[in-house]
């Protein structure tokens, strides 16, 4: 009895330990990518003493094993060398910390749920990690306007559970929802599974409170849908990945909880038919369409096998997931039935299933959301997240398969068709420079040729500044650099990230 009790209580910690003990630590980012430390100050015991004087003992982590998880990113590609993690609980504390760091030229790395996929959330050298984990309070919710105001460290899924109690949902949803923070979502302008329906965060974020590098608190936290008073500064903090300021509070618009939800999961013969089905779904389902996602055979196969998840339907070259959100069950189900009947007749849908029961829908969504993590079980994953015009959407996958041959275990593609955004994963037994150099910059060149984006929703972070020019021209990069100079003249906020040194 007592044994199983102990097991239960320590399960999470043990899992964490296994995660780090069973796998060799990733190579240090600075070595792997040959980066030189910039001339920042180094942390002295007196600095740690100062932080302790503001935050107390417990909210300043310096123990190596305590700090380690904050140094490693989710896909275990990057490892930093930070020795201090700070856990502020209020905007004032963030401001005090930044003012001090700015005066002393100490670099910082803001961290939310650390689920970012481009290495932006972990330090490269000894940047001080500022974790938002304890800034997790909800300020207000207006259930008429749908405006939610909360601190940056609130976990997305907790917020969603909270607003659901009030008949609302969060405007974004993604596989990492149980871990990622709203501040991290905002800082990466996360897209996710329902962008198609509810738009991106530049639309749904109503206001932001952020702290500039010098500690100044910028208050743009109005929870208004309309506020054309001067420059729209909040947008500077949406998607700037912690390089222009630290987001401490967010006001966000929550749409109404749909009364009727349906989910279909279909087998499709080829990619051309996926696109035809998308066109048909847009016209036949119209305003109730809330997600249109696709995954190829290998995406699902790898997820089913590596994570032991059930595939609700038989095997097909492509899978499509269609979700509807509406306010009237009878209306929605009639529409959906007509859409299904017609597309089974045309053969665009070969087979599939539909569900409106929450538990069944969760099982199907879980399969789709787990693809992102499934490749990791087999070794190392190179992940690419690109926007490509729909007619070329899937082209890169077969091209890469050919290019890599047996150097890759699998090359698979899945993603948000509705947003023109595909995730391409290349799984290999372990990271090698050889495979890396076959992929990069090749992929970015190809994406650039069709005027796509080399980073659709994951951002630039640490991994992609050298490739940003494939998507942004000199004029845009120069203005970004000028903004950075204006807002963070000492460059202490998340250095080595987003902007390349030479513009």
């Amino acid at each position: 009895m007592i044994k199983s009790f102990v097991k239960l209580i320590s399960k999470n910690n043990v899992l964490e330990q296994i995660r780090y003990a069973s796998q060799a630590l990733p190579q240090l980012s600075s070595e792997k990518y040959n980066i030189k430390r910039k001339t920042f100050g180094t942390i002295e015991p007196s600095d740690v003493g100062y932080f302790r004087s503001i935050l107390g003992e417990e909210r300043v982590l310096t123990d190596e094993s305590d700090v380690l998880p904050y140094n490693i990113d989710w896909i275990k590609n990057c490892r930093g060398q930070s020795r201090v993690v700070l856990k502020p609980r209020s905007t004032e504390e963030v401001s005090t910390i930044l003012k001090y760091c700015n005066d002393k030229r100490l670099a910082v790395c803001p961290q939310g749920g650390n689920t970012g996929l481009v290495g932006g959330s972990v330090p490269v050298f000894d940047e001080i990690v500022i974790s938002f984990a304890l800034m997790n309070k909800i300020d207000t919710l207006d259930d008429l306007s749908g405006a939610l105001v909360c601190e940056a460290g609130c976990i997305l899924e907790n917020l969603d559970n909270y607003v659901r109690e009030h008949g609302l949902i969060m405007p974004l949803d993604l596989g990492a929802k149980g871990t990622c923070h709203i501040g991290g979502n905002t800082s990466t302008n996360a897209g996710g599974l329902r962008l198609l329906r509810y738009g991106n965060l530049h639309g749904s974020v109503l206001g932001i409170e952020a702290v500039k590098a010098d500690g100044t608190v910028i208050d743009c936290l109005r929870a208004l849908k309309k506020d054309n008073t001067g420059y729209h500064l909040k947008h500077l903090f949406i998607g700037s990945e912690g390089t222009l300021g630290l987001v401490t509070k967010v006001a966000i618009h929550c749409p109404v909880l749909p009364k009727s939800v349906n989910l279909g999961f279909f087998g499709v013969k080829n990619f051309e038919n996926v696109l035809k089905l998308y066109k048909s779904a847009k016209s036949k389902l119209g305003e109730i369409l809330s997600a249109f996602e696709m995954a190829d055979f290998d995406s699902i196969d790898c997820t089913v096998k590596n994570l032991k998840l059930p595939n609700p339907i038989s095997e097909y070259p492509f899978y499509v997931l269609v979700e509807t959100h509406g306010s009237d069950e009878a209306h929605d189900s009639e529409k959906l039935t007509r859409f299904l009947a017609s597309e089974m007749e045309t053969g665009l849908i070969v087979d599939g299933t539909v569900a409106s029961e929450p538990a069944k829908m969760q099982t199907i969504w879980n399969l789709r959301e787990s693809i992102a993590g499934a490749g990791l079980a087999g070794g190392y994953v190179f992940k690419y997240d690109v926007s490509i015009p729909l007619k070329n959407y899937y082209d890169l996958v077969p091209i890469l398969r050919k290019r890599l041959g047996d150097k890759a275990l699998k090359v698979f593609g899945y993603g948000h068709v509705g947003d023109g955004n595909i995730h391409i994963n290349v799984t290999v037994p372990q990271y090698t420079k050889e495979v890396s150099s076959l992929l990069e910059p090749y992929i970015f060149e190809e994406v650039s040729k069709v005027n796509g984006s080399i980073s659709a929703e994951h951002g630039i972070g640490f991994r992609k500044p050298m490739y940003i020019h494939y998507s942004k021209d000199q004029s845009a990069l120069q203005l970004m650099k000028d903004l950075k100079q204006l807002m963070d003249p000492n460059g202490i906020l998340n250095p080595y990230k987003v902007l390349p040194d030479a513009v």
Partner: protein
Amino acid sequence: MSRVLVGVKRVIDYAVKVRVKPDKTGVVTDGVKHSMNPFDEIAVEEAVKMKEKKIASEVIAVSCGPAQAQETLRTALAMGADRAIHVEVTGPAYDTLQPLHVAKILAKLSKDEKADIVIVGKQAIDDDSNQTAQMTAALLDWPQATFASKVEKTGDGLTVTREIDGGLEVIKTKLPAVVSADLRLNEPRYATLPNIMKAKKKPLKKVTPKDLGVDIAPRIKVVSVEDPPVRQAGAVVPDVDALVAKLKEGGHI
């Protein structure tokens, strides 16, 4: 070949958070998503498998409840049941419908439909009674194979593996018999689109307990329904020694 009768109950979906009514007479069901009791899905799956293996000639799904019980029956039909019987029980009568009533209804229908096997879930996830299979068997005076994790046709009877404390028990029963499905009996399928479409056209008959001569006057009175106590926040302890010390301190060991 046998004719199989499967009981399917419409319950609050297990992914939904259940709320107690303010007056504590029950839980809130209005506007709450329902689905087929998961153990009944397993029962349907087993019956459909029997049909696919040509052990069963026909699968009849039965649900007692309000009009929406027909949705649950359509799900069973989409999974492969041949026809459905909706025993309509609505309003306050449904609130007080109890396992004994359902068992009487199933027993009567089994006779009327000349069923050889009755399969139900071992329990419904809403009231957790775990009584219907046993009572149905008693009323029919048929053998019962409860908590089945494997069902095979052997000779003119069934060989059923049952999950019991500490292991498995294998029993043989003659037919007709009543079986209750446990969690590991099978993995219920997702209805495929063509079958979902076909299910809309399969026969569904509506009857009332009165038609069947079953009295559904309540035998049990629910005194009060309460929320479970709120779990107290846990605390993280640094190591096992500290944990043991804490447990001793709290008088748990």
